[in-house]
Protein backbone atom coordinates (compact mmCIF):
# COMPACT_ATOMS: atom_id res chain seq x y z
CA UNK A 1 0.00 0.00 0.00
CA UNK A 2 1.62 3.24 -1.11
CA UNK A 3 0.74 6.92 -0.99
CA UNK A 4 2.47 7.84 -4.25
CA UNK A 5 4.89 6.51 -6.84
CA UNK A 6 8.41 5.63 -5.66
CA UNK A 7 10.15 8.35 -7.76
CA UNK A 8 7.76 10.97 -6.37
CA UNK A 9 8.35 9.72 -2.81
CA UNK A 10 12.11 9.80 -3.35
CA UNK A 11 11.90 13.35 -4.71
CA UNK A 12 9.80 14.58 -1.77
CA UNK A 13 12.06 13.13 0.93
CA UNK A 14 15.13 14.41 -0.93
CA UNK A 15 13.75 17.95 -1.09
CA UNK A 16 12.62 17.80 2.54
CA UNK A 17 16.01 16.56 3.75
CA UNK A 18 18.34 18.65 1.62
CA UNK A 19 16.10 21.72 1.84
CA UNK A 20 15.79 21.63 5.61
CA UNK A 21 19.48 20.67 5.95
CA UNK A 22 20.60 23.58 3.78
CA UNK A 23 18.34 26.10 5.49
CA UNK A 24 19.46 24.72 8.84
CA UNK A 25 23.11 25.40 8.00
CA UNK A 26 22.32 28.98 6.91
CA UNK A 27 20.19 29.59 10.00
CA UNK A 28 22.93 28.35 12.33
CA UNK A 29 25.59 30.38 10.54
CA UNK A 30 23.49 33.53 11.00
CA UNK A 31 23.00 32.75 14.70
CA UNK A 32 26.70 31.99 15.10
CA UNK A 33 27.59 35.25 13.38
CA UNK A 34 25.53 37.14 15.98
CA UNK A 35 27.82 35.72 18.67
CA UNK A 36 30.90 37.26 17.09
CA UNK A 37 32.69 39.53 19.50
CA UNK A 38 31.06 37.98 22.55
CA UNK A 39 33.44 36.19 24.88
CA UNK A 40 33.54 32.42 24.67
CA UNK A 41 34.54 32.34 28.33
CA UNK A 42 30.87 32.92 29.20
CA UNK A 43 29.32 29.40 29.45
CA UNK A 44 26.01 30.62 27.98
CA UNK A 45 27.73 31.94 24.86
CA UNK A 46 29.89 28.81 24.65
CA UNK A 47 26.80 26.58 24.90
CA UNK A 48 25.09 28.53 22.14
CA UNK A 49 28.17 28.40 19.93
CA UNK A 50 28.51 24.65 20.47
CA UNK A 51 24.80 24.12 19.76
CA UNK A 52 25.00 26.06 16.50
CA UNK A 53 28.14 24.13 15.51
CA UNK A 54 26.32 20.83 16.07
CA UNK A 55 23.40 22.22 14.05
CA UNK A 56 25.72 23.03 11.15
CA UNK A 57 27.23 19.54 11.30
CA UNK A 58 23.73 18.00 11.21
CA UNK A 59 22.69 20.18 8.29
CA UNK A 60 25.79 19.24 6.31
CA UNK A 61 25.18 15.55 7.02
CA UNK A 62 21.61 15.97 5.74
CA UNK A 63 22.74 17.55 2.49
CA UNK A 64 25.58 15.05 1.94
CA UNK A 65 23.25 12.12 2.69
CA UNK A 66 20.71 13.39 0.18
CA UNK A 67 23.38 13.78 -2.49
CA UNK A 68 24.52 10.21 -1.80
CA UNK A 69 20.92 8.99 -1.95
CA UNK A 70 20.54 10.53 -5.40
CA UNK A 71 23.86 9.18 -6.66
CA UNK A 72 25.57 12.57 -6.85
CA UNK A 73 28.30 11.67 -4.32
Amino acid at each position, binding site marked *: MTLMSEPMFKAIISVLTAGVGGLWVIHELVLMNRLRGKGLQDP*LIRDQWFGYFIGIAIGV*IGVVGTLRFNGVL
Partner: protein
Amino acid sequence: MATAATATRAAAPAPRRAVPIINPANAVTASRFLTLPFLWWAVDRGYHQWATLFIFTCAVLDKVDGLMARVFDCKSAFGELFDAIADGVCFGFGLVVVAAYGWAPLGSVAMIVSLGVLNTIMRFVYMKRAGRATNYKSYAMERIVAFTAYQIGFATSGMEVKFFYWTFAPIMIITVLYDAKRMLIDPIAPARAS
Protein backbone atom coordinates in the same frame (compact mmCIF):
# COMPACT_ATOMS: atom_id res chain seq x y z
CA MET B 1 35.44 33.85 39.07
CA ALA B 2 32.29 31.78 39.16
CA THR B 3 29.55 34.38 38.91
CA ALA B 4 26.00 33.91 37.72
CA ALA B 5 27.21 34.78 34.24
CA THR B 6 29.91 32.16 34.22
CA ALA B 7 27.97 29.45 36.01
CA THR B 8 25.81 26.88 34.27
CA ARG B 9 22.43 28.46 33.77
CA ALA B 10 19.16 26.70 34.41
CA ALA B 11 16.12 27.17 32.24
CA ALA B 12 13.85 30.05 33.16
CA PRO B 13 11.60 29.40 36.17
CA ALA B 14 7.90 28.71 35.68
CA PRO B 15 5.84 31.74 34.78
CA ARG B 16 3.97 33.42 37.60
CA ARG B 17 0.52 32.94 36.06
CA ALA B 18 -1.04 29.56 36.90
CA VAL B 19 -1.61 27.54 33.72
CA PRO B 20 -4.04 24.58 33.80
CA ILE B 21 -2.50 21.22 32.89
CA ILE B 22 -5.21 20.58 30.32
CA ASN B 23 -4.56 23.24 27.70
CA PRO B 24 -4.26 23.35 23.87
CA ALA B 25 -0.47 22.97 23.85
CA ASN B 26 -0.46 19.91 26.11
CA ALA B 27 -3.35 18.42 24.12
CA VAL B 28 -1.25 18.65 20.95
CA THR B 29 1.73 17.14 22.79
CA ALA B 30 -0.45 14.24 24.00
CA SER B 31 -1.84 13.72 20.50
CA ARG B 32 1.67 12.78 19.34
CA PHE B 33 1.28 9.46 21.13
CA LEU B 34 -1.62 8.63 18.78
CA THR B 35 0.78 8.37 15.84
CA LEU B 36 2.80 5.57 17.48
CA PRO B 37 0.39 2.62 16.98
CA PHE B 38 -0.02 3.67 13.34
CA LEU B 39 3.75 3.88 12.92
CA TRP B 40 4.14 0.38 14.34
CA TRP B 41 1.33 -0.92 12.12
CA ALA B 42 2.92 0.56 9.00
CA VAL B 43 6.37 -0.82 9.83
CA ASP B 44 4.89 -4.23 10.63
CA ARG B 45 3.10 -4.32 7.27
CA GLY B 46 6.15 -3.02 5.40
CA TYR B 47 4.42 0.19 4.31
CA HIS B 48 7.46 2.46 4.08
CA GLN B 49 5.65 5.52 2.82
CA TRP B 50 2.92 5.35 5.45
CA ALA B 51 5.49 4.84 8.22
CA THR B 52 7.35 7.92 6.98
CA LEU B 53 4.11 9.91 6.98
CA PHE B 54 3.31 8.93 10.59
CA ILE B 55 6.74 9.83 11.98
CA PHE B 56 6.64 13.05 9.97
CA THR B 57 3.26 13.86 11.55
CA CYS B 58 4.67 13.16 15.01
CA ALA B 59 7.62 15.49 14.34
CA VAL B 60 5.39 18.26 12.96
CA LEU B 61 3.13 18.05 16.03
CA ASP B 62 6.27 18.56 18.14
CA LYS B 63 6.64 21.96 16.48
CA VAL B 64 2.92 22.75 16.63
CA ASP B 65 2.67 22.35 20.42
CA GLY B 66 5.25 25.09 20.95
CA LEU B 67 3.31 27.31 18.56
CA MET B 68 0.05 26.59 20.42
CA ALA B 69 1.72 27.46 23.73
CA ARG B 70 2.70 30.85 22.34
CA VAL B 71 -0.62 31.54 20.58
CA PHE B 72 -2.78 30.55 23.57
CA ASP B 73 -0.27 31.86 26.12
CA CYS B 74 -0.21 28.59 28.02
CA LYS B 75 3.52 28.00 28.53
CA SER B 76 4.26 26.12 31.74
CA ALA B 77 7.05 24.18 33.43
CA PHE B 78 4.87 21.08 33.22
CA GLY B 79 4.36 21.65 29.49
CA GLU B 80 8.10 21.81 28.90
CA LEU B 81 8.63 18.63 30.90
CA PHE B 82 5.72 16.88 29.15
CA ASP B 83 7.14 17.88 25.77
CA ALA B 84 10.55 16.45 26.71
CA ILE B 85 8.92 13.22 27.90
CA ALA B 86 6.87 13.00 24.69
CA ASP B 87 10.07 13.46 22.64
CA GLY B 88 11.75 10.64 24.54
CA VAL B 89 8.80 8.27 24.31
CA CYS B 90 7.88 8.96 20.67
CA PHE B 91 11.36 9.03 19.19
CA GLY B 92 12.62 6.24 21.48
CA PHE B 93 9.68 4.09 20.43
CA GLY B 94 10.23 4.93 16.77
CA LEU B 95 13.92 4.02 16.92
CA VAL B 96 13.23 0.73 18.70
CA VAL B 97 10.53 -0.24 16.18
CA VAL B 98 12.65 0.47 13.09
CA ALA B 99 15.62 -1.37 14.65
CA ALA B 100 13.44 -4.33 15.70
CA TYR B 101 12.19 -4.76 12.14
CA GLY B 102 15.70 -4.47 10.71
CA TRP B 103 15.07 -1.12 9.04
CA ALA B 104 17.91 0.53 11.00
CA PRO B 105 21.29 -0.79 12.28
CA LEU B 106 20.73 -2.30 15.71
CA GLY B 107 24.15 -1.33 17.08
CA SER B 108 23.75 2.33 16.21
CA VAL B 109 20.18 2.48 17.55
CA ALA B 110 21.28 0.79 20.80
CA MET B 111 24.00 3.41 21.17
CA ILE B 112 21.62 6.31 20.47
CA VAL B 113 18.93 5.05 22.87
CA SER B 114 21.53 4.36 25.60
CA LEU B 115 22.93 7.88 25.26
CA GLY B 116 19.39 9.27 25.44
CA VAL B 117 18.74 7.38 28.68
CA LEU B 118 22.11 8.54 30.06
CA ASN B 119 21.23 12.14 29.19
CA THR B 120 17.90 11.81 31.03
CA ILE B 121 19.63 10.45 34.13
CA MET B 122 22.11 13.34 34.06
CA ARG B 123 19.21 15.80 33.91
CA PHE B 124 17.83 14.34 37.14
CA VAL B 125 21.29 14.62 38.74
CA TYR B 126 21.44 18.24 37.57
CA MET B 127 18.01 18.89 39.10
CA LYS B 128 19.22 17.35 42.37
CA ARG B 129 22.37 19.50 42.31
CA ALA B 130 20.28 22.60 41.66
CA GLY B 131 17.93 21.66 44.49
CA ARG B 132 14.86 22.67 42.49
CA ALA B 133 12.69 21.51 39.61
CA THR B 134 14.63 22.79 36.63
CA ASN B 135 15.65 21.66 33.19
CA TYR B 136 19.13 22.12 31.73
CA LYS B 137 18.76 23.88 28.39
CA SER B 138 21.12 22.32 25.89
CA TYR B 139 21.21 24.03 22.51
CA ALA B 140 23.07 21.09 20.99
CA MET B 141 20.70 18.45 22.39
CA GLU B 142 17.70 20.36 21.01
CA ARG B 143 19.20 19.90 17.56
CA ILE B 144 20.04 16.26 18.23
CA VAL B 145 16.41 15.56 19.23
CA ALA B 146 15.13 17.19 16.04
CA PHE B 147 17.56 15.13 13.99
CA THR B 148 16.42 11.95 15.79
CA ALA B 149 12.99 12.36 14.20
CA TYR B 150 14.74 12.56 10.86
CA GLN B 151 16.72 9.40 11.68
CA ILE B 152 13.49 7.44 12.05
CA GLY B 153 12.30 8.94 8.77
CA PHE B 154 15.52 7.86 7.05
CA ALA B 155 14.91 4.32 8.29
CA THR B 156 11.25 4.21 7.22
CA SER B 157 12.03 5.67 3.80
CA GLY B 158 15.20 3.58 3.30
CA MET B 159 17.24 6.71 2.66
CA GLU B 160 21.01 6.17 3.13
CA VAL B 161 20.22 4.46 6.43
CA LYS B 162 23.72 3.26 7.34
CA PHE B 163 25.32 6.60 6.42
CA PHE B 164 22.88 8.65 8.50
CA TYR B 165 22.91 6.36 11.52
CA TRP B 166 26.66 5.97 11.75
CA THR B 167 27.36 9.67 11.28
CA PHE B 168 24.71 10.53 13.88
CA ALA B 169 26.18 8.35 16.66
CA PRO B 170 29.52 10.24 17.06
CA ILE B 171 27.77 13.63 17.02
CA MET B 172 25.48 12.45 19.79
CA ILE B 173 28.43 11.11 21.81
CA ILE B 174 30.22 14.49 21.58
CA THR B 175 27.04 16.33 22.62
CA VAL B 176 26.36 14.05 25.59
CA LEU B 177 29.97 14.42 26.77
CA TYR B 178 29.77 18.21 26.52
CA ASP B 179 26.43 18.30 28.36
CA ALA B 180 27.74 15.86 30.99
CA LYS B 181 30.46 18.33 31.96
CA ARG B 182 27.94 21.18 32.09
CA MET B 183 25.37 19.25 34.14
CA LEU B 184 27.61 17.25 36.46
CA ILE B 185 30.74 19.38 37.00
CA ASP B 186 30.21 23.07 36.20
CA PRO B 187 28.68 25.35 38.85
CA ILE B 188 24.95 26.02 38.64
CA ALA B 189 23.49 29.52 38.52
CA PRO B 190 21.00 30.40 41.26
CA ALA B 191 17.33 30.52 40.30
CA ARG B 192 16.17 33.88 39.00
CA ALA B 193 13.73 35.70 41.27
CA SER B 194 10.17 35.55 39.92
